Each structure stands twice: as structure tokens, then as C-alpha cells.
């Protein structure tokens, strides 16, 4: 009996700081300033500027997720085939940037891409015309890929390194070529890692406001920027909460996908 009491502090904490806060978002999202029920806040996602922000967020985060996957899978494969154990130095090198402060990583790209930044400096040194790199959708994608790539590498690597070499040898002995082995063995067995990696990149990319703020300038608004501004500048918490509810639908979808494909938590990054 006394063991159950140990859960007390945690249960109180969860109720106070996880459940009630989420309840408040739902309450604010579904009421107006007078406290009356309305769906106007959620429906405001359909206004042209909000819709544009949502589509742009979805598009940019999808592109970044695809690029991350395309870069990370071969990388995880090479690391795994080098037979290096988990926690070896070479794996460490590719995971290390993940522990570097997120804002510093974004600031680094600002330095490189700016009008008077390092990349344009190199271009003028080579007598090539300067490019406007910052404040473009491309800069945001670059920032997302750079920031979230390790979150794709790690779960895929974890899943791949659990695959037994003997399975591959068996397939080869039975006459499968490299392509068949990739499509019929590596890919299906690494699905939990891929799905987990996709979610770990897609959700933060979809909801970011920092990367778009620092690398996209003030002209490119993502849905995260819209919500952040409702809370910090415009002061319309009802609208901000309503839009957050829309965002949570996408998060719930990704959670459902994870639950379907990664039942045992094999693809978890930690």
C-alpha cells in the first residue's frame, strides 16, 4: 500500500502541469473573450493568411523530413556496416551536434547565409555574384535539416545495428542481390526506426518558429510563428489556442502512426 503513495507527488504534478494546462488550451481554443463557446478560433485556420502559413509549414517540414531521411539512411547504414558499436567515437561524432544548443546551431547558419555572411564572402572572393540566401524558404529548409538530422540518424542507426548479420548472409546465400536485400530485408526491418525518425523530425519542423524567425526573416510566416505572435504580441490567446488545437491534430496523427508501427519502442532514440 505504501508503495502506491509514492506515486502521489507525480500524479499531482501530472494533473497540475500536464492535464490542466492541456485542458486550458482546449478551453481557450473553444471560447471567445466573453467565455462563450465558439469554434471561430479553430475555424480561423481557414482564413487565407493562416491557411497559407499552415500549408507552407506542412510543405517545408515534409521537404526537410524527406531530405533528412535521404541523408540519414545511407549514413546510418554505413555506420552500422563499419561494425562500430554503439557509443563508439565515430557514431558519437555524428550525434554530438544534437547536444549543441539549438539556438547556437541556428545562429551559425545565420552567420553563413547572411547578406554579408561567410558564404557570400566566399562567393565575392571567387568573383562570383552574391546570392540572397537568407530569408528564403530554402534557408528555412536548410536550418531544419541541419537542426534535426541527428534525430533521424539515431533511431535508424539503433534499429539497423540490432539487425543480425546472419540474416543478410542467409539472404545472400539464397541468391538475393544487393538491391533485393535492401528492399526486402533492410528496409522492412528498419521501419520502426524510420517512422520514429520521421516523427522526431516532422513534429518539431512543423511547429518551429525559431528557425523561420532567424533564417526566414519576418516575411515568411509558419504556423508556429502565427501562434507565437498571438501569444507574445497580438495577445489573442483564444485565437492562439484554437490554432494550437489544429496543430495538435497533426501531432496526434503522428503519435497514432508511431503507435501502429513501433509497438515495442524499438525505434526510440534514447
Amino acid at each position, binding site marked *: 500500500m505504501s508503495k502506491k503513495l509514492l506515486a502521489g507527488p507525480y500524479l499531482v504534478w501530472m494533473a497540475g502541469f500536464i492535464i490542466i494546462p492541456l485542458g486550458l488550451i482546449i478551453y481557450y481554443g473553444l471560447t471567445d473573450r466573453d467565455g462563450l463557446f465558439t469554434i471561430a478560433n479553430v475555424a480561423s485556420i481557414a482564413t487565407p493568411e493562416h491557411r497559407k502559413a499552415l500549408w507552407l509549414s506542412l510543405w517545408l517540414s515534409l521537404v526537410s523530413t524527406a531530405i533528412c531521411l535521404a541523408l540519414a539512411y545511407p549514413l546510418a547504414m554505413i555506420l552500422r556496416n563499419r561494425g562500430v558499436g554503439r557509443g563508439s567515437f565515430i557514431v558519437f561524432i555524428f550525434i554530438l551536434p544534437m547536444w549543441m544548443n539549438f539556438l547556437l546551431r541556428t545562429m551559425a547558419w545565420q552567420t553563413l547565409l547572411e547578406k554579408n555572411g*561567410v558564404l557570400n*564572402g566566399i562567393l565575392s572572393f571567387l568573383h562570383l555574384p552574391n546570392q540572397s540566401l537568407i530569408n528564403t524558404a530554402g534557408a528555412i529548409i536548410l536550418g531544419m535539416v541541419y537542426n534535426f538530422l541527428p534525430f533521424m540518424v539515431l533511431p535508424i542507426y539503433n534499429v539497423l545495428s540490432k539487425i543480425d548479420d546472419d540474416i543478410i548472409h542467409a539472404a545472400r546465400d539464397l541468391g538475393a542481390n544487393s538491391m533485393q536485400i535492401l528492399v526486402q530485408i533492410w528496409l522492412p526491418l528498419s521501419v520502426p526506426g524510420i517512422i520514429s525518425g520521421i516523427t522526431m523530425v516532422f513534429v518539431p519542423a512543423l511547429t518551429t518558429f525559431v528557425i523561420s524567425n532567424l533564417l526566414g526573416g519576418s516575411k515568411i510566416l509558419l504556423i508556429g510563428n502565427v501562434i507565437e505572435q498571438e501569444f507574445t504580441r497580438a495577445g489573442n490567446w483564444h485565437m492562439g489556442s484554437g490554432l494550437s488545437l489544429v496543430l495538435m491534430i497533426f501531432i496526434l496523427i503522428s503519435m497514432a502512426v508511431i503507435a501502429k508501427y513501433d509497438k515495442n519502442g524499438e525505434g526510440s532514440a534514447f
Partner: protein
Amino acid sequence: MNRLGRFLKRTWQDFYLVLIMVFLYAPIVTMMVLSFNTSKSRTQWGGFTLRWYADMFASRNIMAALHNTLLIALLSSLIATVIGVAACIAINSMKPVPKAVVMGITNIPMLNADIVTGISLMLAFIAFGISLGFKTILIAHITFNIPYVILSVMPKLKQTNRSTYEAAMDLGAGPVYAFFKVVFPDILPGVLSGFLLAFTMSLDDFIITHFTKGAGINTLSTLIYSEVRRGIRPSMYALSTVIFLVVLTLLILTNFAPRTKAEK
């Protein structure tokens, strides 16, 4: 596969590894180089200087933010560890249904987007009448840290053998004494890694802090954000170089030190 083919494959793989490594580290190295640059320009080398480091250590804002960051990381990870370990013991002895419910709720802060967690906590603090400041950052950090502790400790706790704990009780140990003598040593690696994970998550957090901090207080992350939006000063490069080296040292120590000891 013939020897040439293998050689080409190996070379191609090395090339790919180097390419990704350059992509990951070029920005960080650029900042390090610029932190020693006398010229404020990002494209001209004006000579070597340590001035920006002196600026950084002299800056009251940066030092206050550093102090807040470390204090919040330490307190939040310690408190989260205590609450989390206690919760694990209780959850472990729960029936399957309540257990699944509690674990499901535990996963919410980990899977939810940081912006939603941050906003929801901000709304709650204002509804509870807690004024935004150091306290609220601390509470917010404890909230998102507890799940990391639970997820690190739970697997270890499941592996422990119940009989040893019961044997200790049979031999006259009280439940608390038996726990600390018998169970705790077994779950200690999980507790430590949970603590370290929580500490790092707290150090790195920006978004949740941004919404729960209120005016007049900064952590390093929020300070960097407001500075960068006004234009990057070279002292920020000095700061990032220092942070990078500290993180590197900490990670090397935690990743490699125990292993080499075990091998000996």
C-alpha cells in the same frame, strides 16, 4: 565482389561520411574561428584576439543567464529525478490498466510539440495566479524532465529481482532500508542516465522557457534568441565556442570514461 569494387565502395562511403561531417561541423567551426577575429566583419580576418571572450565574461547579462541556466538545470533535474524514481516504484507495482494510463500521460510532454507544452503551461501559470519568472521556468523544466527520468529508470526497475527485496524484508530490513540497500544499487545506472538526460534537456530548452519565463529573466537560450534578433555580436561566438567545448568535454566524459574503466 571484386577487390576494385570493394575499394570503390569503401572510398565512396568515406567520401559520404566526410561530406556529412563537413555539413555538421562547418557552421560550428566557422563560429569558433570568428570568435577569435579582431574584425567584426564575418568575411575579413583582422587578426587574432581574445577580446570577445573578455567581453563575454564581463557581460553581466550573459553571466546572469549562465547562472540561471545552470541553477535551473541542476534543480529541475534533481527534483525530477526524485519525483520520477518514486513514481517508477509505484507505477511498477500498479495493475496493468492504471499503469498504461499513467505511462500514456507520461508520454504526452515527450511527444507533444514544445510550443504547445510551453503555451499550455503559460496559460496554467496565469490561471493559477503564479507570476511568470524563475519559479515558473523551474516548474516547467521539472514537468518535461520527469518523463525522461521515468523512461530511463523503468527498464532497470523491471529487470530487478523482487525476491532479493523480499528476502531483505524477511531478514528484518524495513521497506526503506531494503530499497536503498537492495533495489537502489541495481537501478542506479538508470537513475544516473535519467538525471543526465534531464540535465541536458533543461540546458538545451528554448521554446518552453520562452513562454514560461516572463520579463526580466533570461536563460542562455532566451538570451541568445533576443541577442541574435538584434544582430549577432562576436561575444555570442565566444559564448558558443565555450558552450561547445563544455558539451564536448561532458559528453566525452560520460560516454567514454566509464567504459575504459570497465575494460581495464
